[in-house]
């Protein structure tokens, strides 16, 4: 079968390999709030000089049912995604069910300079974008040499 598999890009192959390794070494200690890779929703985090940008890739949710909160410097995103397969329909054959279904919760530790009073969240095309402003005092500034 491997001949039929026109080598897709190397990065996703490495990703698959990494997941296998993670399964093998899952018992080793890591950050106390770390979750296993592949948890839903997947999260990308970036920073600018003024803000911390968190993007959660959570498609197919009702934004009203998404719960985003900040408590003690922890940003929590939780909610539920309902499975699409109507059970009870016995004629239906399921070939793949890779999409996540069920309740989820992800916790992100915010850096010290995050200001929990200034947070915006919006849901666009299945992505939850959370913008956390930084404290004024922590913004980078150049120091003049006298």
């Amino acid at each position, binding site marked *: 079968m491997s001949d039929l598999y026109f080598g897709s890009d190397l990065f*996703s192959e490495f990703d698959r390999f990494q997941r296998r390794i993670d399964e093998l070494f899952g018992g080793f200690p890591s950050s106390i709030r770390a979750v296993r890779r592949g948890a839903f929703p997947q999260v990308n985090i970036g920073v600018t000089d003024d803000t911390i940008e968190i993007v959660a890739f959570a498609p197919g949710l009702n934004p009203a049912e998404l719960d985003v909160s900040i408590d003690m410097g922890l940003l929590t995103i939780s909610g539920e995604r309902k499975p699409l397969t109507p059970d009870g329909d016995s004629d239906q054959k*399921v070939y793949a069910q890779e999409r996540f279904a069920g309740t989820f919760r992800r916790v992100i530790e915010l850096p010290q300079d995050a200001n929990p009073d200034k947070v915006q969240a919006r849901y666009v095309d299945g992505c939850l974008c959370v913008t956390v402003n930084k404290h004024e005092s922590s913004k980078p500034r150049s120091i003049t040499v006298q």
Partner: protein
Amino acid sequence: MSDTTEVIEREQQTSVTPRTQEKSRDRRATSVPAVDVFEDQTGITVVADLPGVSKDRLDVKVQDGNLVIEAEASVPTPDGLRLQHAEIPAPSYFRAFTLSPDFDTAKIEANLQGGVLKLRIPRSEKARPRRIEVKLG
């Protein structure tokens, strides 16, 4: 190893990457979107997670008997963003499936809502299961 991993691997073996020359030269990293595939009497439903994809950046096509889903994600981010942690490393998605000839590729319906693509691939009339009446002789 869980059952899900098995399913994913089997699916990946049926997928092929585009063979066109310009694609292989411009080989960017792509993510493999998670899919659900179900079949009923009248056809197959494919549901794919494509977060961050809007309608104009999605390309679904049938090429050489393969169903190809290609999409580009765009998330509105401010200028000067420095990425610190990325679980989705590439903003583009690619996945392909082989289609058997009993599907009516002219009647595929696609619907994208909230980053979830739903494809309905109907079976051609000829290939639908029929019950054959048995008459007593």
